[in-house]
C-alpha cells in the first residue's frame, strides 16, 4: 500500500537533480561580479540604489511606501531587514543576503531588496 512506484522514484530523483543543478547554477551566476550594490524596489520600481561602502556599515534605511513600512540595515557587504510591519515577518527572519542575485522579498509590502552586480563604472547614484 505505501510502496513507491517506479514512476514516483523517477519523479523524486528528477526533481532532486533539477533543483540541485539550478541551485548550483544560481550560485555560480552570482560569483561572476566584483562590484555589488543593493537595489530596493517597491511594486517593481527601483526607488533606491546603495553601493556597499565601509562608511555606511551599520546604517539603517527606512522604506515607507503606500504598502507598508520596512527598516533595512546595511552591513559589511550584506544587507538585511530588521523591522517590518507585515504580519508574517518573513523578510526579517531571512536575515542577511550578500551574494549577487539574492533577494529579500516582502510580499505584503511589495518590497524587493536585491543585490545586483555591475560592470565597472556603471553606478550612476550613490546614496549616503
Amino acid at each position, binding site marked *: 500500500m505505501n510502496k513507491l*512506484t517506479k514512476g514516483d522514484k523517477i519523479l*523524486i530523483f528528477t526533481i532532486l537533480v533539477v533543483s*540541485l543543478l539550478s541551485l548550483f547554477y544560481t550560485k555560480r551566476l552570482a560569483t561572476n561580479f566584483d562590484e555589488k550594490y543593493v537595489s530596493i524596489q517597491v511594486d*517593481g520600481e527601483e526607488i533606491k540604489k546603495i553601493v556597499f561602502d565601509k562608511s555606511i556599515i551599520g546604517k539603517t534605511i527606512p522604506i515607507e511606501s503606500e504598502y507598508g513600512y520596512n527598516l533595512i540595515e546595511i552591513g559589511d557587504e550584506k544587507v538585511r531587514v530588521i523591522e517590518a510591519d507585515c504580519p508574517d515577518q518573513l523578510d526579517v527572519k531571512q536575515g542577511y543576503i550578500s551574494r549577487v542575485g539574492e533577494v529579500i522579498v516582502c*510580499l505584503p509590502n511589495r518590497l524587493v531588496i536585491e543585490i545586483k552586480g555591475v560592470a565597472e563604472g556603471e553606478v550612476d547614484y550613490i546614496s549616503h
Partner: protein
Amino acid sequence: MKGIKRMIFLSLLVSIGLALSLFESMMPLPFIAPGAKLGLSNMVILITLVVFGFKEALTVGTLKSIIFTLATGSVTSLFYSLSGSVLSCILMFIINHRFSNIFSLIGVSIFGAVAHNFGQVLVASLMMSNIRIFSYLPILLLTSLFTGYFVGLTSKFAVKNLKSSFDNIFYSN
C-alpha cells in the same frame, strides 16, 4: 438527500483544510525560504480529489483560500495562495486521472506541491515584476519534495479508510 450529504462532507473538508492552514501558520518552523510551508491543507485537496472528483477539489481549494484570507486578513496573500492551489489542483487531477498507473498518490502529491510552489513564485514575480524571485524556486522545490512525500503518504492512509465509508454512505441507501 445525497446532494445534501455531499455538500455537508465538502464543507467539512473545507473547514478541516482551514483548520490545518491556521494550525500550520501558528507552528514555529525552521526558516528555509519565504513561502516554504508544510502544505498540510494540500492533504484535504488531494483527498477530495480522489474521493469526490476534480470539480469538488477545485471548489474546496478555492473556498479554503478565500476563508483563510478572511481569517488572517492579508489580502495580497489571497492571490498567491489561490494561484498555487488552483494550479496544483489541475496538475494533480491530470496526473491522478491519466497517469495513475505510473504514479501513486505520493507522486501525485509531489506534483501538486511542485505546481503549488511554481504558481506562487510565478504570480509573485508577475506582481512584483521581478524575475529574480524565481531564484527561490530550487530551494522551494527541494522542500516540496519532502512535504509532498509526507502529504501523499498521509492522504493514502486517509483515502483507504474514507473511500469505503463514503461509498457506504452514498451508495448503500
